[in-house]
């Protein structure tokens, strides 16, 4: 494996044996980005100089035998809704085009403490609202496997960067599938942790009760390594959980005994692609061959997830995005009549279509006369959805399903049909609504040579189980070793 296609764990071993330096690895990633990102569009900004400086400093420390962090010298890319001091954080929005945060997100502090090399900020759907990065105000990220196809979203840039050889690791955020769906489309591992497992301090808020930061990686081991680096309690996010962070890498190679894998017997998702169905079936066979028991589970309220999600997420978004008023930071319109008009004009000019759509939907759902019918109703159905999982997890250890109904769609294919785009979130939104962890692992290839992911879900705070189950599958297959081109 070359320095741009190897996993972070492989690169760490190579650095420790003196075979390669962090500076060489970082330079190789930057060269690859310079050579090919004009066709992929994974990055919105690069921090090339500071990255090379950090890399050289890590190399010096390594040579001097000084203590090193877990990710010492490994290039990491950040979704551009995660604040890193001194680097623009645009959320792919005209609203924050010139915004430079004066502080680091909690996870950025953790990454710096782990001696990671932050190389750049990746593209996303504006404010993480979307499933294709087509809602970015600046560019659309192409799928490294086929540049006519979408990389997925909203963390499309982070997924594409790992798949394309631009960075061995990256971070994304997942509100309704925004890590798992692009991971599936791009053939990489993407994990959404339990709600509260990772601090959201410094993550630009979209829907606060659903948002969670998580890792992208080229294999399960790397995802475990990155998760154990960023997880844990942080006083500045009161919803972050005060639960021990186990070493997710420690027992990863140890298969789970008497594993019970739940599956949804009647997968009637509209438009479920044959290749996706087949890949899911084959994945279940792999678990069976490993001695796992396959048990059908009922999730009677699964079909209501998308409707529930598209009330709750826009409602929270309409409230969170009220802060963009052209006063403290962000875009201010040039022409306006008065203060209120300044707010409306600034927001009208700087937000894109999807962001406006969601603010409008959320405001509508929360407005007088509609609150009970929409928002309150959705919160009640949310509990029914969570109860389904609680019951299912009494019978099984993990639940396996597709990540998305289809492999990557073509860029432009769904852009004029918001509802069709929303319906593609059918398998992913339930984990956010319930707060449970989920992972997408490479599990197949469509006839058109596009990756297909397998989603595994586990009960709250069972990331260790989730990752070990994912690793059991990965060891038996070589989908994760395939690279585009």
């Amino acid at each position, binding site marked *: 494996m070359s320095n741009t296609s190897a996993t972070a764990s492989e690169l760490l071993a190579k650095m420790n044996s003196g075979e390669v330096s962090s500076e060489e690895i970082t330079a190789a990633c930057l060269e690859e980005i310079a050579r090919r990102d004009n066709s992929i569009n994974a990055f919105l900004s690069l921090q090339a100089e500071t990255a090379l400086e950090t890399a050289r400093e890590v190399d010096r420390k390594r040579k001097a035998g000084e203590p090193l962090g877990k990710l010492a010298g490994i290039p990491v890319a950040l979704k551009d809704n995660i604040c890193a001091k001194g680097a623009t954080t645009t959320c792919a929005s005209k609203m924050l085009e*010139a*915004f*430079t945060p*004066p*502080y680091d997100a909690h996870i950025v502090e953790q990454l710096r403490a782990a001696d990671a090399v932050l190389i750049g900020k990746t593209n996303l759907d504006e404010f993480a609202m979307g499933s294709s990065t087509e809602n970015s105000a600046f560019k659309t990220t192409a799928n490294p496997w086929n540049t006519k196809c979408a990389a997925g979203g909203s963390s499309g840039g982070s997924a594409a960067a790992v798949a394309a050889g631009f960075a061995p690791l990256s971070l994304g955020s997942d509100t309704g599938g925004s890590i798992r769906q692009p991971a599936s489309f791009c053939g990489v591992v993407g994990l959404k942790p*339990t*709600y*509260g497992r990772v601090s959201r301090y410094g993550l630009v808020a979209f829907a606060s*009760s*659903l948002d969670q930061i998580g890792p992208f990686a080229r294999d399960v081991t790397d995802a475990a390594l990155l998760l154990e680096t960023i997880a844990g309690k942080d*006083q500045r996010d*009161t*919803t972050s959980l005060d639960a021990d962070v186990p070493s997710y890498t420690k027992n990863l190679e140890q298969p789970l005994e008497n594993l019970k894998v739940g599956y949804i017997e009647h997968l009637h998702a509209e438009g479920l692609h044959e290749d996706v169905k087949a890949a899911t079936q084959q994945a279940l066979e792999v678990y069976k061959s490993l001695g796992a028991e396959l048990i059908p589970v009922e999730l009677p*309220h699964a*079909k*209501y997830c*998308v*409707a*529930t999600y*598209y*009330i709750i997420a826009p409602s929270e978004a*309409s409230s969170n995005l009220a802060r963009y*008023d*052209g*006063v*403290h*930071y*962000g875009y*201010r319109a040039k022409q*306006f009549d008065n*203060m209120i*008009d*300044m707010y*409306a*004009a600034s*927001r*009208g*000019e700087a*937000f894109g*279509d999807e962001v*406006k*759509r969601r*603010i*409008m*939907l959320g*405001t*509508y759902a929360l*407005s007088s006369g509609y609150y009970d019918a*929409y928002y*309150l*109703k*959705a*919160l*009640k*159905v949310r*509990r*029914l959805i969570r109860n389904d999982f609680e019951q299912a997890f009494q019978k099984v250890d993990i639940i396996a399903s597709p990540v998305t109904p289809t492999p990557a769609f073509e860029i432009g294919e769904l852009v004029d049909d*918001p*509802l069709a785009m929303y319906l593609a979130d059918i398998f992913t939104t339930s984990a956010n*609504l319930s707060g449970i962890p989920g992972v997408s692992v490479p599990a197949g290839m469509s006839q058109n040579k596009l990756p297909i992911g397998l989603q595994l879900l586990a009960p709250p705070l069972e990331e260790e189980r989730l990752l070990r189950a994912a690793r059991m599958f990965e060891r038996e297959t070589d989908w994760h070793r395939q690279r585009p081109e």
Partner: protein
Amino acid sequence: MSTQLTQDEVLKVASLSRLKLSETEVTALGEQMGSVLKYIAMLDELDTTDIEPMAHAIEISNVFRDDQLQESLPREQALSNAPQTDGKYFLVPAIL
């Protein structure tokens, strides 16, 4: 339920949202919001009478911290992203 929001309804929500919209946007949003709301109406099939609403995935309440002085952002940095500032304050158009 009507499948489309009227222009007045859209404009009312836009005003509550502090969003200045073009005429094209108003028309498009009327249709798009209508189709999403029509889809969402499937929740009406469910009887949720005795179900407790669930606002958060992990049900925790009132997280307190000690009330201690902490360092805050220096003024210069707090103002560094302001669209308009005099170096001391955020400037806005006259309100009265």
